[in-house]
């Protein structure tokens, strides 16, 4: 994004994706009383001690750093849910499980700032690492199969950070394959029947996920 000397590379850098992730809403339990905050993006209602309220993640982290609240872990970040997701990821070799779009960034922010609010911290952290590895491995195996006939690659349920990592590579790889596999490069031998018009062979649809 800003300051990129080579516009062909990734549009977002990793901290920028994290910045975008901070707009997600989380629940906090304040331990002080504060009146309403009126911001450009919205009003965040008056805070009463021990009454949960929903705020964006950036506000939650800011309050947490000042010791004014505790952050309640999102419900997808419990050990049971993550174990389920990990099992499902390992079983299906082509599909990705639905996970929150910014799960990598949210989990990292919570680990950094709210590590005492998460039950079973080490377990959750290792589970998320494993999920990330399995998904990325799936992306790689899927990428091995693209060829010149691939018109588009469909990756369903991939998260923001994962998309950001593969974006420059995938764009260039598809461009390179397109250049090499165009019909004028691979010139068919003239012995084929000349009167039959050559329809464009679209090839099989290469989904990384079956429809």
């Amino acid at each position: 994004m800003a300051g990129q000397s080579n516009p062909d590379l990734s549009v977002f850098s990793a901290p920028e994706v994290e910045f975008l992730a901070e707009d997600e809403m989380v629940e906090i339990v304040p331990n002080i009383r504060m009146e309403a905050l009126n911001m450009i993006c919205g009003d965040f209602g008056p805070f009463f001690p021990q009454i949960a309220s929903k705020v964006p993640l950036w506000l939650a982290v800011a309050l947490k750093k000042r010791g004014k609240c505790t952050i309640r872990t999102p419900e997808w970040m419990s050990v049971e849910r993550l174990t389920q997701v990990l099992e499902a990821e390992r079983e299906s070799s082509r599909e990705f499980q639905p996970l929150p779009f910014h799960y990598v960034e949210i989990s990292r922010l919570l680990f950094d700032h709210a590590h005492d609010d998460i039950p079973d911290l080490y377990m959750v952290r290792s589970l998320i690492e494993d999920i990330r590895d399995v998904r990325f491995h799936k992306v790689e195996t899927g990428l091995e199969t693209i060829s010149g006939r691939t018109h588009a690659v469909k990756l369903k349920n991939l998260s923001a950070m994962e998309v950001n990592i593969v974006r420059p590579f995938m764009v260039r790889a598809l461009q390179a394959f397109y250049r090499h596999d165009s019909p004028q490069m691979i010139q068919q031998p003239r012995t084929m029947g000349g009167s039959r018009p050559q329809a464009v062979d679209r090839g099989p649809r290469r989904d990384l996920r079956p429809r």
Partner: protein
Amino acid sequence: MPGYYDIDDIIMEEEPISVVFQVGAHGVGLLDPGSETNNVENGAKVDLPFWLAHELYLRQAVSISVPACFSQKTRKEIQADAACVDLRIRCPYFYELGCKIVPLVSDKSIGSFLHYAFTGRYKEILSKSHSASVVTVPKFSTRLTKEESQLFEAARSSMLAFKKWRLGGSRLEKASILGRKRKTTIPACPSTP
């Protein structure tokens, strides 16, 4: 796609191609180091940069022979193991040159050969670039052509950026210019009487 302003395209077109002149050419003996007079004879074999060879081919003044990097020897090596062939030494612009040569040369199998080579090496690039370990990189990346190494670098830099972000730390980076200490002593100079 390469264009008029693309630097890689410009450098690639400097690659020498050996051509055979179909007509005699006067006054350009500079091109042929073996000619005594200032002319190039009909049928002389000369090395020209690609951009010149292309133009002369369009005027039907030369016929282009297949460059050495697409010879049978290279093909055999690539068929043996595509990933280990050092293409950078042979021709750093292997693929681009091949793409440009295809409409000019009579050999029709170059296109599919390029495609085969690229597919073979692409798998290696994919796995090596995303592993993000510093050890295996230098040996492998010296064998890639310019185009492949751009692909490789793109993947590797985004992977490294992600790893760096994951390790944590503050989001604000200190500008590198602040790291250097300013010299506070006046450098000694000879005193002028």
